[in-house]
């Protein structure tokens, strides 16, 4: 009975809906939260949905990781595409770099002003 769940289109649908829900959680958090720290962490959650979608959509049932082992002894036979995994490796590192830089800006901003609420920011002198 469980074989009907172990089909490639079903798993692709589950991965798509899950990634979309994760994207929605991240975007709703980024739009509704007032704390600057939580906004950047929500954007990081939304990025995680992209990683999940890219890796998951290139998975197919019966194929293994593109690494030669005792089980898989030849390149190109029963192997998934290695290019999306390499791209996502690049993307994860860049996401970490951008997140770290933005969080360091948040820390420095808090040291200067003692404020993290985006509704109370008035450094540019706008009339509220």
């Amino acid at each position, binding site marked *: 009975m469980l074989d009907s769940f172990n089909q490639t289109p079903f798993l*692709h*649908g589950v991965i*798509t*809906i899950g*990634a*979309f829900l994760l994207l*929605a959680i991240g975007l709703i958090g980024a739009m509704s939260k007032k704390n600057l720290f939580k906004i950047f962490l929500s954007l990081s959650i939304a990025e995680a949905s992209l990683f999940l*979608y890219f890796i998951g*959509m*290139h998975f197919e049932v019966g194929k293994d*990781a*593109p*690494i*030669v*082992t005792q089980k898989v002894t030849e*390149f*190109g036979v029963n*192997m*998934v*595409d*290695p*290019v*999306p*995994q*390499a791209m996502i*490796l*690049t993307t*994860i*590192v*860049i996401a*970490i*770099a*951008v997140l*770290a*830089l933005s*969080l*360091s*800006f948040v*820390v*420095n901003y808090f*040291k200067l002003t003692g404020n993290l609420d985006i509704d109370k920011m008035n450094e540019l002198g706008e009339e509220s």
Partner: protein
Amino acid sequence: MNPKREIRVQTIVVSLLVSIMTILLLGILLSFQPLSGSLGSELLAINQTTTQSANAVTSVVTYFRGLDTLGEVTILFLSIFGIGLGIERLQEKENIFSYDNALLKIGADMLFPLIILFGLYIIIHGHLSPGGGFQGGVVIASGFLLMFLAKNNEFKLNHKMTTLVEALSGAGFVLVGILGLLLVDRFFGNFLPLGTLGKLWSGGVIPLIYIFVGLKVSAEISTLVEYFIRIKDVR
């Protein structure tokens, strides 16, 4: 018409638009089919003859698209450099955590060399098994994080050392690319003997590139961890 009513109309229109876009996007995403004869299958077909690396993801990251990895490492370096501009006198700051636990301190002393060894293992075997420079570098940085948590203010990074490791490994990474350009045909070309598939000495320049990347990433992420954990002012 009072202002309250306009806002309600706007809300209804915006929520309708958002739901229509959601349905359209879900329809596009659910009907997506990955192509079968793509770049990946071509790269897998020539992987054994050109690189002799057992891990195809590693050969794509470091050999076929080595220039991308150089740009990625540069972005990571620029991010750490931008964070370093905000640091003033890190040595006078205190840890935000202050655990005083003898078990944690002795256990951290025992675990720290093992974590460093495990990270180096993952870096060196990046062309044979899942792993590589970025993953092993982050494992090494997690060892430093354990030391920062356990020995709150006694453990400090030697900043001259981390800067030296980072600069030398970055320069070595670019040097491997330029040697490939001079000795063989292209940037990040392979100028070392290939070896046999599955052995530790195989893959040409791929282990060399990943060792440089691993050292650079471990130094950078350790500096990052120290900055984020030691931000409290000394009273």
